[in-house]
C-alpha cells in the first residue's frame, strides 16, 4: 500500500492519560492496511482501526522521543512516544492518509471478509425487512397505503422507495407537496400507533418562497389529520429552537416595523389567533426568507409546536467541549460538573428527550397524529421520531426491534451517516454526533427503566462502534439510493446478523419481557436525572471503570440459578434411581458424594471469585472495529469467550502491505 512507509516501530511507549506519574507501557507498533496495532511487553494487543481515527497529532519532540496523540471517533485517545522522529513522522503521514479515504471503495467494508458465502450474506441483509415492520404496525389499512410515487427515486432522492401515505392523498398531491418541501422530503408515515390510530409522520421544512402557499401540501396535511379517525386536529412539531427563529425574525426588521412589534406577541402564544397583522407578517417574512415555516393561516386543525433542539454545528462543538471536560484535566479538578454543564451536552440530550416525550404524549394522551420536521428532516427529525416510537412501542426496546428502528428511521429515511460520521474525507462541517445523541438518549432510558430493554449498554456501544468502523455496509452512504449504487448488499456484509450471533452478551439480564406492547415509558427529564455516560466517553479508559457492576452480579446469579436447578433435577433423578433399584444407604451416600463437589456453597463462593477475577480477561480485549464479537464487556465471565480477533484483516493487511 503506497501510504505505508514504516510497518513496524519498536520501543514505542504507550502512555495512560489518566495516570499522573507518566507510567507507560513499552512495546511494538505495527501499521497494517486496516489497523494500527500496538503489542506491549505483556503481549497485550491494542488494535485501532484506521477508520476510527478522528485526528492524529504530532507533539513537540521530547527527550524520550516524539509524542503522537491519536483521537478516535469511539472516544479512545492513545498517546504514543516514538523514539525516533523519523518513524513518528512516517506513521503520522501514513495515518493521515489511511484515516481519510477519498472513495467509498477504499473503506474497510469492501475488503472485510468474514468468510461467508453469498447466500449467507444475502440472508444477513434480509434479516431486517421494513415491509414486514409496517405490517406489524398495522399498515397498510383503510387509512394508510403504500405509495409507489418514489419507486424510482423520482420524487425524493433521499427517501426510500417504499413510502406510506394517507390513502386519500393522490399522487399529484404528493408531487405538489414534495416540490414545496426542502429536498423533496414530503410528509410520510414513520410510525403508526395501532391502538390509538394515530400516526407519526415526518418531512422537511417548507420552501415558502414567493409562492407562500402550496395547496397540495395543505391537502396532504389535511389527509394526514383525516387519517386519524379519533382526533381531528394534529400537531406539527418543528424541532428547531424558537430563539433561532426569533433571531431569524429579527433580521426581517427591514421589511417593516410592524413585524418587530407583533412578533413577540406571536411567539409568546402557542396558538396564534388570526389577525390581519399576522397574515401580513407571515407573508412578508416567508417571501423574504424563501423557506422556513408553515404559514399557519393556511392550515386548519393544526397545532404548531416548537421544541428546541439545536443544529448539527452546535451539537458538534458541544461534544468537543464535553471531550475537553472529561479529559485528563477536567476529571482531576473539582469543577468537573460545571464543565459538564457548560459543554451543554446533557442539555441537548434533554432537549431531544423532551421532544420525544411531547410526541409520545400527543399520541397517548390526546390521540393526535404528529408531523415532525426540522430543516431537512434527517437529523433532529430522525432523533425525535425514533425516540418517540421507542417510548410508545415496547417492540423497539427489544434487540430485533431496535435494529428495525435504526433501519427505518435512520438508514432508510436518509440520515446522512457517511457525512455525519465523516467516513470519507469530506466537509468537516457536515460531521455531527446526531446518532450518538440518539444512542445516549436510549442509554438514559435504560438507566431510568432498567427492566424495559431487552438489550444492554454493550449493545449500544457496539452499534456506536460500527457506525464509524465502516466494517459493515449498513451505515455507509447517505441515503438508500446511494447505497444501491454502491451495491452494498453484494459487496459488503450487514452488521445485524453478527450482533445476533453474539446475542448473549448484549442481553439485559433483568429484562422483563411480559410488558404489554404499548407500555409507554414516562421518563423524568428533570435535569438531575441526566448524567455523564462514562462507559461511552471513557470506554477505553479502563482505570475509570467501576470495579463492580450490579449487572454482572445478576448475570452470575442467573447462571448460578440455572446450575442449581440442574443439580436438583439430577439429584432427584438419582435418588429415584436408587430407590428403584432398592440399593442400600451406602450407595446413596456414594452417589451424593459424587455430586458433592458441586455443592451450592462452593459454587456461590466460586461465583464471586470468578467475578473478582474478571479484569484479567481484560488482556483479551484487544481490537475494536475489526470484529463484531469484540467485546468491551469481557467482564461477563468466561462463558462469553473472546472470539478470535479478526485474523483475517491482519493477514489481509500484511498481504497487501507486501505487494
Amino acid at each position, binding site marked *: 500500500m503506497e501510504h505505508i512507509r514504516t510497518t513496524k516501530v519498536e520501543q514505542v511507549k504507550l502512555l495512560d492519560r489518566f495516570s499522573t506519574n507518566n507510567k507507560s507501557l513499552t512495546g511494538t507498533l505495527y501499521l497494517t492496511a486496516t489497523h494500527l496495532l500496538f503489542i506491549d511487553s505483556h503481549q497485550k494487543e491494542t488494535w485501532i482501526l484506521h477508520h476510527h481515527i478522528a485526528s492524529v497529532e504530532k507533539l513537540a519532540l521530547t527527550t524520550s522521543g516524539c509524542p503522537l496523540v491519536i483521537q478516535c471517533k469511539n472516544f479512545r485517545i492513545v498517546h504514543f512516544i516514538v523514539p525516533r522522529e523519523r518513524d513518528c513522522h512516517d506513521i503520522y503521514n501514513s495515518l493521515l492518509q489511511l484515516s481519510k479515504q477519498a472513495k467509498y471503495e477504499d473503506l474497510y467494508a469492501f475488503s472485510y471478509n468474514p468468510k461467508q458465502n453469498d447466500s449467507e450474506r444475502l440472508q444477513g441483509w434480509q434479516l431486517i425487512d421494513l415491509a414486514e415492520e409496517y405490517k406489524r404496525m398495522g399498515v397498510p389499512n383503510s387509512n394508510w397505503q403504500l405509495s409507489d410515487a418514489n419507486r424510482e427515486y423520482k420524487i425524493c432522492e433521499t427517501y426510500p422507495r417504499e413510502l406510506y401515505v394517507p390513502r386519500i392523498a393522490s399522487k399529484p398531491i404528493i408531487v405538489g407537496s414534495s416540490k414545496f418541501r426542502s429536498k423533496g422530503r414530503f410528509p410520510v408515515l414513520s410510525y403508526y400507533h395501532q391502538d390509538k390510530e394515530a400516526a407519526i409522520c415526518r418531512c422537511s421544512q417548507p420552501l415558502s418562497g414567493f409562492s407562500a402557499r402550496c395547496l397540495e401540501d395543505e391537502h396532504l396535511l389535511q389527509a394526514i389529520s383525516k387519517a386519524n379517525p379519533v382526533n381531528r386536529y394534529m400537531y406539527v412539531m418543528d424541532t428547531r429552537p424558537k430563539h433561532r427563529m426569533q433571531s431569524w425574525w429579527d433580521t426581517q426588521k427591514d421589511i417593516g416595523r410592524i413585524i418587530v412589534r407583533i412578533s413577540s406577541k406571536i411567539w409568546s402564544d402557542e396558538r396564534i389567533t388570526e389577525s390581519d397583522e399576522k397574515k401580513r407578517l407571515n407573508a412578508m417574512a416567508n417571501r423574504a426568507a424563501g423557506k422556513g415555516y408553515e404559514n399557519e393561516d393556511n392550515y386548519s386543525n393544526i397545532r404548531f409546536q416548537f421544541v428546541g433542539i439545536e443544529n448539527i454545528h452546535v451539537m458538534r462543538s458541544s461534544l468537543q467541549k464535553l471531550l475537553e471536560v472529561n479529559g485528563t484535566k477536567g476529571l482531576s479538578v473539582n469543577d468537573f460538573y460545571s464543565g459538564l454543564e457548560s459543554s451543554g451536552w446533557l442539555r441537548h440530550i434533554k432537549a431531544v428527550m423532551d421532544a420525544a416525550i411531547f410526541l409520545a404524549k400527543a399520541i397517548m394522551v390526546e390521540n393526535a397524529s404528529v408531523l415532525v420536521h426540522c430543516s431537512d428532516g434527517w437529523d433532529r427529525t430522525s432523533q425525535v421520531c425514533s425516540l418517540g416510537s421507542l417510548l410508545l412501542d415496547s417492540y423497539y426496546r427489544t434487540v430485533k426491534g431496535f435494529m428495525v428502528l435504526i433501519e427505518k428511521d435512520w438508514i432508510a429515511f436518509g440520515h446522512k451517516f457517511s457525512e455525519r460520521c465523516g467516513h470519507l474525507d469530506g466537509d468537516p462541517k457536515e460531521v455531527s454526533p446526531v446518532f450518538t445523541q440518539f444512542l445516549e438518549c436510549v442509554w438514559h432510558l435504560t438507566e431510568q427503566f432498567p427492566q424495559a430493554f431487552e438489550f444492554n449498554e454493550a449493545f449500544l456501544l457496539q452499534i456506536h462502534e460500527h457506525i464509524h468502523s465502516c466494517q459493515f455496509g449498513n451505515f455507509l452512504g447517505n441515503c438508500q439510493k446511494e447505497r444501491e449504487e454502491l451495491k452494498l448488499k453484494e459487496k459488503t456484509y450487514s452488521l445485524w446478523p453478527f450482533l445476533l450471533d453474539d446475542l448473549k452478551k448484549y442481553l439485559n439480564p433483568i429484562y422483563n419481557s411480559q410488558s404489554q406492547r404499548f407500555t409507554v415509558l414516562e421518563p423524568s427529564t428533570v435535569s438531575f436525572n441526566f448524567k455523564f455516560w*462514562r462507559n461511552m466517553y471513557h470506554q477505553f479508559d479502563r482505570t475509570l471503570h467501576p470495579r463492580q457492576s450490579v449487572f454482572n452480579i445478576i448475570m452470575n446469579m442467573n447462571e448460578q440459578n440455572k446450575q442449581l436447578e440442574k443439580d436438583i433435577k439430577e439429584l432427584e433423578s438419582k435418588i429415584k434411581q436408587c430407590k428403584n433399584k432398592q440399593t442400600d444407604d451406602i450407595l446413596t451416600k456414594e452417589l451424593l458424594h459424587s455430586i458433592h463437589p458441586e455443592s451450592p456453597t462452593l459454587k456461590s463462593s466460586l461465583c464471586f471469585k470468578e467475578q473478582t477475577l474478571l479484569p484479567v480477561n481484560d488482556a483479551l480485549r484487544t481490537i475494536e472495529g475489526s470484529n463484531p464479537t469484540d467485546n468491551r464487556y469481557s467482564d461477563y465471565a468466561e462463558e462469553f469467550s473472546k472470539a478470535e480477533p479478526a485474523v483475517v484483516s491482519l493477514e489481509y493487511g500484511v498481504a497487501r502491505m507486501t505487494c
Partner: protein
Amino acid sequence: MFSLKPPRPTFRSYLLPPPQTDDQISAEPKIKKLEPVLLPGEIVVNEVNFVRKCIATDTSQYDLWGKLICSNFKISFITDDPMPLQKFHYRNLLLGEHDVPLTCIEQIVTVNDHKRKQKVLGPNQKLKFNPTELIIYCKDFRIVRFRFDESGPESAKKVCLAIAHYSQPTDLQLLFAFEYVGKKYHNSASNMNGVPCESGGGGVSGPGAGSSQKTPLFETYSDWDREVKRTGASGWRVCSVNEGYMVSTCLPEYFVVPSSLADQDLKIFSHSFVGRRIPLWCWSHSNGSALVRMALIKDVLQQRKIDQRICNAITKSHPQRSDVYKSDLDKTLPNIQEIQAAFVKLKQLCVNEPFEETEEKWLSSLESTRWLEYVRAFLKHSAELVYMLESKHLSVVLQEEEGRDLSCSVASLVQVMLDPYFRTITGFQSLIQKEWVMSGYQFLDRCNHLKRSEKESPLFLLFLDATWQLLEQYPAAFEFSETYLAVLYDSTRISLFGTFLFNSPHQRVKQSTKSYSSTLRAVPSSFRNGVLSDPELLPRRNSLVLKPKPDPQQQADGRGGDAEQYFRDWFSRPCDLHGVILPRLSAAHIKLWKLCYFRWVPEAQISLGGFITAFRKLSLLADEVDALSRTLRQQRGGALDAGCAEPAQSRMYFRAGGPQAHAAGTPEFLSSSFPFSPVGNLCRRSILGTPLSKFLSGAKIWLSTETLANED
C-alpha cells in the same frame, strides 16, 4: 405550660364548615372521631379539627381533611381520606403517613392570608394573628402545609404555638425519649403504631432479627476486649481508667490504649489534652498497624514530650515497631462550619429552588454547594490513610483539636474500607457505636435537637454519604442497602433513639436516671442488600494471630512505591470484596445520593423505574438461589440425616413468590424514590405540572429567618 393569654372566644370558631365547595373532592369533613395513634408515654398536647392538608401547590382537589394534633413526640395529621395518587408507602413502625417527629422540624411558618402576614414561629413567641395556614419545613427535606380555613381560629393558633413550643425544647430532658422510656421493651413484639411488627423489624429481641447478632455497644470492658481480639491487636489493652468518667466526661468508660502505657501515666497525660481526651485506639490492621485518634495537646510546654511518649508507645505496640504517621485533620479537611454551609446550600438546591429556574444551571449549582467536593475530600483522605496502614505498615494517628468530629468520619471510613466486618449490618452499627457514640460525637449539638443552631453540622450525614459512594462503587461488598443508610440518617431525626441524642456517653448516663436507651438495632429485611455475597464467606480474623498476607504484590509495595503506585496497583488487581475496597475519586465518580436527597421531591420521581427495579430483580434472584440451595441441601440432608433446620425467613425484602413479587412485570408501586413516597410533600409544582411561585416566597423564608419582618 404556655405563656398564652386565654383565648378570646370568637363566634367564628363555632361555625360549622360550609358544605361542599366545587373543586373539593371531599369537602365535607369527616365528623367521625379521628383518634391519633400514640406511642407509650406519648400524650396529645393540642389538636385542631377540620384541617386541610395540602397535597399540591396549585390545586386543592387532592387535599385531605382531618385533624391536626401536636403531641409531645410528633405532629400528626389524622384523616380517613386515602392518600391520592399514591401507589405505595413505606410504613414506618413509629410514624404514620402524615406524622413528623418534633425533632425533625426545621422551621415553622404561620401565614394569614387576609392580613397578608407571615411569621416564623420560635419557642415562646406570641402570635398576633390567627393563622390560616401552617407550613412546616422538615430537616429531612420535606415541606408540609396545612390550611385552617374551616377550623376554629383559636384552636389553630394554639396548635401552631404548641408545635413551636414543643419542637424547640430548651432542655434535653424535655425530649420525648425521656417520656418514652423503657415501655417499648415490655411489649416489643406487639403492635406498634397500629402496624404489626414485621419479624426482624421490631425490637432487639424480635423473633427473626436477621443476622441475630447483637451489635456491640462498646459500653463494657468486654466489648472492647473482643474488638481488640477480633482485630488481633497484640500490643494494646483495654483500660478502665475512665470508669465512672473520672478522667474525662467525653470519653467512654472503657477504651483501648498501648499496653506500654500505664494507667497512672495516662491520668497524668490526660491533663494536657483538650477535653482530657487521652488518645483512643480505633482499630488494628492484620499487619499490626493501628489507627488511633488523638485530641490536641493544649499544654505547650509538655507538648513535645507527651507527643513523643504517645508515639513511642504506639510504635512499641506495633509488631514491626513501625513509625507513626500523623494526620492533622484540621489542616487537611474542611471544617464543620464549611460542611454545614455546604449542606445548607445543598438543601436549598434540592428543596427550595424551583427546578425550572435551576434547570440550566443544575450541575454548576450542585458543584458550587461544594458538598460533593467535601465528600470526595473525606474519601480521598481516608483512602490515603488506608495506604499508610495497609501498604506502608505505619500506624496512623488522627489529630484534631477535640478529636470528636472529623476524626469520627475519617476513622469510620478507613475502617469501612479496610475491614469487611464493618460492611455487615452488625459491624456497621458497632462502628457507629464505637467511633461516633462512644467516642463522644456531639449528636445533640450537631443534629441540633435543641435548636441552638450555631453548632449544627451534618458530619454524620457526610459519613453516610461517603459510605453510600463506596456502596455505589462496590454494590456487593455491603450487607446493607442504600435504604438502610437513608433510614439510619432519618433515625437521627427521631428523638426516640438514645443513640443519637447525646453529646457524650457520660451525658447519656447522667441524663438517664431512667433506663432510656432504645437503640436502633434490628433491621427490617427491606434494608438488606441482595447483592452481598454469602455472609458465611466473610473471613473472621483469627484472634491474636497475625497472619502476614502471602500476597507477593503486597511485599513489592512495601519496598517503596508511593501512594500513587499503591492505588494504581490496587485498581489494576481484581477486587476482593472481602478485603480492602478503595473508592474511585475522579470527579465523575462522586455522585449525588439521590435517594436520600430527592426522595421527597415528586418531580424527581421516575415511576416504574429507577435502580430499585433492578434491585428488586436481583433480590428475587438472590432469594431463588437461596431457596434452591436450601432444597439442594435438604435433598442431601434427607438422604443422610435428619437435615438441618433452615431459617424460614428469607434474607430478602423482595421474595420470589412473596406477596410483593407480582408474577409479571414490575410492581406498580416501584419508583425511583422507593420505599419513600413524595406524594403530599409540598413541592414547587403540582403533580399535574403547573409551576406556581406562590409558595416560593414561603420557601425562601427558610433561607434566612432574619429577612422576615416581624409581625406588627
